[in-house]
């Protein structure tokens, strides 16, 4: 029978299958971060240890300060979360990329960067953006604290197989249009619950033409469309990206691995439970106007009128979102003034993102507070080797240390109540970047365009001039 990439990875990891379909899956990689202390504590309370420390990797990201690399100025509860992770990792013999290690960073940047995330693997992490790792052809999904404890104790998880969904994007992206715009366009098309219960496979010539960084951005936001996992079948781009990375296979193992990875594609006649197609040529730079990522629209559009909503529930939701965002129907998106800009997060903090940001920033000046937070210490070092930090600093951006930072503000990098932030992160939920904060999601290039004009701006205009 023809099978999908998901089917193949699933079958290869099934230890036990109950008659009702519940499957005990073997987990290849478990990534843990500084929000994992309740899970480690639950394990300890039961007198259990970490079953496979060799398959478990830790790095602090949510609570780390981005101004400096020491914790002396951190509030006790934040410092405690990082120290807890250090202690749990040490006690369990888990490899830790700690705060003083250049390899530290956002867990979803570090995994692929270190070559820990590989095709065909099942990768889990106590974070909903774990789907990111699916970009290298893995099945990767986010789990809660109880499931984190379960994986620590058993290196397995009970799961029900998600349905198969394929999203095919074909054609060339226009200049100024990036992976972030593609995924925002997808979410706007299928809605925030459009892929609930499914694993998405992204396919088509547009996806194939993307770098791994671009694919990571796309897979990262699968959860914002409701899918716990998103993936791209591995290809030459994937193999070239992984070759030589610290945890990638070497020598004869590399050849064997590539032979195996090459087989990891959906069969030509495989059936998907749902298929969606998008034309890349129709995708413009996108921004969100509301409090769900599904409220993404082309920068050339106007804020929609709740009166035109299909039903009362939707109208009510739009009205609430516009009230929170302090926006009026009919306003051109490109007229919205911005107070602050954040470039970073597990969605958009990789070297390619910073290069795209630097291209727009080069020779311009920010007119509002703006910060760039690289995804890892190694991304930061690479950007500095390329002189990007100089471009950013000259343009007036703050150049920070690696971490999740203002995406979720758990480290104290917060957007003030009432402030409007153009952000390259993944969620524009009410209060996400701080209580009362207003978030507009967009690409790194678009974020820099907002930083240098003080309003949401079509970056294509700046690229032309």
């Amino acid at each position: 029978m023809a099978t999908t990439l998901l089917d193949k990875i699933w079958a290869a990891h099934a230890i036990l299958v109950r008659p009702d379909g519940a499957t005990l899956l073997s987990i290849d990689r478990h990534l843990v971060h500084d929000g994992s202390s309740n899970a480690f504590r639950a394990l300890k309370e039961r007198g259990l240890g970490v079953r496979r420390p060799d398959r478990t990797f830790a790095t602090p990201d949510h609570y780390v300060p981005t101004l400096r690399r020491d914790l002396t100025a951190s509030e006790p509860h934040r410092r405690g979360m990082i120290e807890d992770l250090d202690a749990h990792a040490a006690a369990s013999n888990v490899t830790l990329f700690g705060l003083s290690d250049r390899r530290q960073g956002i867990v979803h940047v570090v995994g692929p960067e270190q070559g820990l995330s590989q095709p065909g693997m099942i990768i889990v992490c106590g974070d909903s953006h774990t789907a990111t790792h699916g970009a290298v052809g893995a099945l990767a999904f986010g789990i809660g604290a109880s499931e984190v404890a379960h994986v620590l104790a058993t290196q397995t998880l009970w799961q029900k197989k998600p349905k198969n969904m394929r999203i095919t994007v074909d054609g060339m992206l226009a200049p100024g249009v990036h992976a972030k715009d593609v995924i925002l366009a997808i979410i706007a098309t299928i809605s925030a619950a459009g892929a609930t219960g499914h694993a998405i496979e992204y396919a088509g010539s547009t996806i194939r033409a993307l770098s791994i960084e671009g694919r990571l951005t796309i897979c990262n936001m699968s959860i914002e469309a409701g899918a716990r996992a998103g993936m791209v079948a591995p290809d030459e781009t994937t193999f070239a990206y992984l070759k030589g990375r610290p945890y990638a296979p070497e020598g004869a193992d590399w050849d064997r691995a590539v032979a195996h990875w090459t087989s990891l594609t959906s069969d030509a006649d495989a059936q998907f439970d749902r298929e969606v197609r998008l034309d890349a040529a129709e995708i413009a730079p996108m921004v969100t106007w509301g409090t769900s990522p599904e409220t993404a629209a082309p920068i050339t559009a106007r804020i929609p009128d709740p009166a035109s909503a299909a039903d009362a529930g939707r109208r009510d939701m739009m009205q609430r979102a516009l009230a929170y965002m302090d926006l009026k129907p009919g306003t051109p998106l490109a007229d919205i003034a911005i107070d602050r800009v954040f470039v970073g997060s597990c969605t958009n903090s990789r070297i390619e993102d910073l290069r795209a940001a630097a291209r727009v920033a080069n020779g311009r000046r920010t007119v509002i507070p703006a910060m760039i937070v690289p995804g890892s210490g190694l991304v930061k070092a690479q950007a500095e080797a390329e002189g990007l930090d100089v471009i950013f600093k000259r343009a007036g951006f703050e150049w920070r240390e690696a971490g999740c930072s203002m995406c979720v503000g758990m480290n104290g990098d917060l957007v003030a109540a009432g402030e409007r932030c153009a952000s390259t992160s993944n969620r524009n939920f009410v209060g996400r970047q701080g209580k009362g904060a207003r978030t507009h999601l967009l690409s790194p290039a678009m974020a820099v365009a907002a930083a240098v004009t003080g309003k949401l701006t079509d970056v294509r205009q700046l690229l032309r001039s």
Partner: protein
Amino acid sequence: MEPFQHLDAVAAPMAAPNVDTDQIIPARFLWRKRHEGWGHLLFHDLRFADDGAPKPEFVLNRSAYREARILVADANFGCGSSREAAVWSLYDYGFRAVIAVSFGDIFFSNSFQNGLLPIVLPAERVAALRSELEQRPGAHIVVDLAAETVRGPDGTVDRLTVDPFRKELLLAGTDDISFTLQHRDAIAAFEKAYEADVPWI
């Protein structure tokens, strides 16, 4: 984990779709320990004004719904962040079941790990239940997990669909770890064969 009991309780309606886990429990509280209790933080910024006073319009601040143990939400409830504290907050407040058109996948999994039953019903039934609860504040819904039924205030009975595996564990109050540890040998045997196949892992 406590076994899931027969549930005959006040239900509260919450009409908004896409209630994300940031709304259920804001990120600034997530450093707390599980045993410290989370019920007082549930829906914090929807429930309390900046000065800490309860917002009178919020459903759980209306006296008829204060004792609610069943929440009737809308579509995509619990979407977003994987924070299990969203479930802990609902559970510690007293909720034992949430009825919705659909759930965020991770929230759905997390619920079962803590004895909170997520129930998916068709959109029109969820809307009808909410409307009954709004018309008769304090009305009860009855959830019988063993019989797989939900009885609304007007006596209408809906079938609830639950995976047999999840039902078994909920009714027994067994969590996944205890169950899986019975399969240690199968796990070890699998790992041995698997690592022979893909030694570079």
